[in-house]
């Protein structure tokens, strides 16, 4: 059985041609490797389809959000500075909602997001961040399931296993009315 990393690189066409042919020859003789390669290719197609269909749940990073913007998938946008709040909602036509959180990111190594509301709490670990901001999209399909409520988004720096609060943002969400 060949190393998983080489199969993943083959699936992405990232191997030099001679090495790719060597791995392909191995795959043609290895049922287990062929099955893993097909699953990897399925996974890649599945991830692309889900993202395109607006089921990405929570996707972060400037470049990814900009790609979604270019493809017309971002249909609603909010921006909040530390300590600020915003009134937000969602409608039937929305695909992804973009949220930009202003943040002094100097010296940070890892940022987690704590989402707190009466109906649901969760933590999103290790958000990509950029100078002066954290930016992400949430799937409207998910937001449409949320009730009217006041939500708190807390960004924390994770340092030596402990949280250090960086900023708090408030979202006054009005539920989707079909």
């Amino acid at each position, binding site marked *: 059985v060949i190393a998983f*990393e080489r199969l993943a690189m083959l699936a992405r066409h990232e191997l030099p041609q001679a090495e790719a042919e060597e791995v392909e020859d191995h795959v*043609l003789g290895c049922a287990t490797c062929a099955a893993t390669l097909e699953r990897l290719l399925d996974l890649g197609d*599945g991830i692309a389809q889900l993202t395109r269909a607006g*089921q*990405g749940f*929570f996707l*972060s990073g400037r470049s990814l959000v900009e790609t979604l913007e270019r493809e017309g998938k971002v249909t609603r946008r909010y921006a909040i500075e530390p300590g600020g709040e915003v009134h937000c909602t969602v409608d039937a036509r929305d695909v992804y909602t973009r949220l930009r959180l202003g943040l002094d990111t100097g010296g940070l190594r890892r940022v987690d997001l704590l989402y707190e509301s009466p109906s649901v709490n969760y933590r*999103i670990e290790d958000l990509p961040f950029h100078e002066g901001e954290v930016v992400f999209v949430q799937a409207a399909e998910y937001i449409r399931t949320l009730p009217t409520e006041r939500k708190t988004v807390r960004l924390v720096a994770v340092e030596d296993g402990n949280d250090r609060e960086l900023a708090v943002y408030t979202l006054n969400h009005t539920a989707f009315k079909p």
Partner: protein
Amino acid sequence: MSAEDDDGALAARIAKGDDRQAEAELCRRWFPRVRAYGRLHLGANDAADLAQEVLAVLIRALREGRIEDASRLGAYVSGVCRNIASGWKKGERRRGSLLERFGPTWLQTTAPPPMLEQARLVECLRKLSARERAVVVLTFYADKDGDEIGRELDMSAGNVRVARHRALKQLLSCVGGES
């Protein structure tokens, strides 16, 4: 037929004469592997067609005694895969005659690949960290390479590859695939 029959023994039986059972068994073994090759180079829609075409060529060559050294079977299949896939990429696609002659005997013996359940994949993606999720979505949706993703997420290309492999392993395990 003994389950222990290896490819060489099956090839020898096919070369000797009309042995549909040996042909079906050989194709059952090779079909998923050739389909994976086709999936890689031609995409999901054409992968099974490529596998059928390649195996039809293989069976014909064996029947006609054109593969004398069974240890060369792998190299022969590999060459046929590359030739046919290359031709199809250039639009040179002829189907029908070979499959009509060689396909029906063994087509029923090849199982389709397992389907990836979308709802399960959504759940599995949620279990990744935001950074890992960004890496796999940038890879497969935005079609970015390791260097581009590294610049975007302030990571080295090597770290991007490590994060991607770890995330893919976790996803495969989560959706129930092999890793």
